């Protein structure tokens, strides 16, 4: 009984929570939030999904081991950090920005990409830790 409700709920909850987490991520530059909290929310979404549908299903949904999100995030962050060196010969991690702001998100710049990297790493880390512990419990 419990599982059916949960399962149905989580099917809707997963995309909703993910969207919310991306919102938190993007708005971080203006309001409380950012990559870290956003990442945590996204992982909670996956954890809930795993709780409802079983670990295997969630893993299948992700296709790749969540661990790969860590180097991916780090890479995104590194590239964001390196971009000023290549683009304008400015120091590592200098913010460079597109001229025009986008609606909802605001200004787009290397800092945002960096935050996306953080977001990805946090998801990767929390999912790896939780999955590993659950598997070996």
């Amino acid at each position: 009984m419990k599982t059916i409700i949960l399962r149905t709920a989580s099917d809707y909850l997963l995309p909703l929570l993910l969207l919310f987490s991306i919102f938190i991520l993007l708005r971080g530059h203006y309001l409380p939030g950012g990559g870290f909290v956003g990442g945590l929310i996204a992982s909670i979404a996956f954890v809930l999904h795993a709780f409802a549908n079983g670990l295997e299903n969630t893993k299948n949904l992700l296709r790749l081991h969540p661990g790969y999100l860590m180097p991916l995030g780090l890479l995104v962050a590194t590239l964001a950090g390196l971009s000023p060196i290549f683009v304008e010969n400015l120091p590592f991690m200098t913010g460079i920005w597109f001229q025009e702001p986008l609606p909802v998100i605001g200004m787009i710049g290397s800092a945002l990409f960096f935050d996306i990297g953080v977001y990805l790493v946090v998801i990767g880390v929390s999912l790896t830790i939780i999955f590993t512990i659950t598997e070996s419990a």
Partner: protein
Amino acid sequence: MLLTLYKLMLIAILTGFLFSIFLVFAGKYLKGRLAILSALVPLGLFVYFLNFSKRIANGEVISQTFEWVPSLGVNLGFTLDGVSLIFALMITGIGFLVFAYTAAYLKGHEFLDRFYGYLGIFMAAMLGVVLSDNIISLFVFWELTSISSFFLIGFNNKEEASRKSAILALAITGTGGLLLLAGVLILGNVAGTYSIAEMLSSKEVIADSAHYILIVLLIFGAAFTKSAQFPFHFWLPGAMKAPTPVSTYLHSATMVKAGVYLLMRFTPVLGSTELWNSTLIIVGATTMVYAAIHTIFRTDLKGILAYSTISALGVLVFLIGLGTQDALLAACVFILVHALYKATLFLVTGIIDHETGTRDITKLAGLRKVLLPVAIAGILAAISNAGIPPSFGFLGKDLIYEATLHFGNSAVLLTILAIVTNILLLYAGFLAGIKPFTGKLPTTFEKVHLPSFLMWLPPLILATLGILIGLFPSIIQGSLIQPAVTALGESGSEIQLKLWHGFNLILALSATTIGVGALLYFIMKPSQKLENGIAKLEFIAPQTLVEKFGFGFGKFSRFTTGLIQNGYLRYYVSVIILFLVILTGYTLIQNTKYVFDYDSFSVLTVYEVLTVLVMIVGILFTVFTKSRLAAVAAMGVVGLAISLIFVYYSAPDLAMTQFSIDTLTVILFVLVLYKLPKYLNFSDYKVRIKDGVLSLVFGALITVLALEVLSEPQGSQLTDYYAENAYVLAKGKNVVNVILVDFRGIDTFMEIAVLTIAAIGVFSLLKLRLTSKNRR
């Protein structure tokens, strides 16, 4: 031409090292018949140094300098004067004979190449010692002689006794080396230079310095350990575990004389003071008599020779202590005398040992019948040793008596000591050089045959030299002895070496010495009984005392290490905290004002007080609950309360993060914990009180510190800058987030790296199972 010769001096020293490095790679070709070729190295060097003798005889001092580490004042400054030349010739000359001898002595030995390698290093290092003008480079070479000695003593390293002796010798000479290091550094500082030549001009400055005593004592420490003076002598008999060529070369002819060399070298700089002279006289005299007496109680040939070497070294130190021109002259001559006869005796002993398989003097007799050339060498050496005219030894002995007799008030006492020593040395020399060859040949030795000429020729050459120089002292008088005495700072009258001084007191003393010595030889018979007798006194021998000390020290270090590193983590933590509390407490108490500016503190609201109360209860519950899960839950509550505080005090981002992290931590804890057993109540009441007090003191300290800091003004220029620029330049309005991703983005970057690493750690800690198959 001259320049190239000069250049050669560095190369001359390096030759030995290069030879050894060469052996590492090509050694296997030098193990067989070609082994004798290695003797060419010292021979070449001998000829090289001999070339200088004319110039040295003319009073020249050859010096040259190669830069090495100028920033530390260390260069390779070499000086060749009379003293250096004597030593250099001895090192290379005896080196040549020993190298040749070894080719036969260790013929076919598995590790012959290694042996030559060590010898090469030693020879080079020893040359470095006697040629160095820079005292640091002197020390460098000095240490290298100790190290090569270590490897040579331990050459038969499968035997425990060899290894032990090697370590013991290294420990003693190594200690001396360190004293020397301190000594030369302090000396260099006081004198303002590391060059011995330059120090000569600041002799007074050094002597008047407050550190003079320290310097002298340190240098004495080095010299006495290296030259086996009482009470540091005991490593030398142990060193006889080395193959005989080593005993000959290092432990009688050259290395042990490095200490003597050091004293000679520093005589012009540090000498002529009460401290210098008296100490040397006392130590030297004690050593020479003590060791000479010991020879009576030995039955092993090498043991006898070891003690007689110690005694001879004592004589040398004693002579340097006398410090008069006569005495220094005697010292220079006696170094050569001793090197010639003692090396011979050792080589002879080596042959006997090699051919008969024993060194027990009580068993050896009549070997002249089978080893005639060896017998000749031995007997000639014994004659020189005894100081029977016309040997070189006779000359040496004369000079010694000459020196003691002219030494003011204590002349009689000193002369008597010298005579006693000489008598016993004579006895020892007869035992080693004559006893094995006279009498009836035991049947067991009938099959003994003469070894290759490579073995018997070197001692014969040395022994013959010992007689030849006695007959024609002019060979060395002008070329070696005169410059050496000059180098020792005695620029006085010209010296004369001659056999015949007419009938005088000295001749009478010499005759007495010989007579009594010979008598002693005929009366005393070495025996196992005597040896066992002295063994009973061993419990007060310096060696025993040092070994006991070493043992005790080992126990002490085990005790302290066990005390410090006792394995209990909580003890480690308490020590660290105690240390912290004492240090910070001390400074805080000294400087605290205890004035707090309450007005600047913010006003309390009911919510805040409630939150704090919840937190306090949470903390207490965490600490005192008996349930693990409850503790974790309480800890979670504390974390939640903290995030509330963050909410109250304008930190929404922090509150969010704290909240989510806190929740996650609790979840993880629960996931892991529910499988573990219950808490056990380990510690007793007393321990808990003690820990509680320590913890509270620590906590109070932090509180006081916090309040102190709060009462100081703080104006952060960062805050204003960020307020100005967060939006204008960094295009963000949530300043905390802007700091995180932009101003201090690297912090965040590394924070996610930490998370990544932690995740890998968690993953591998739980997933990796080493099984017996993949474990190794």
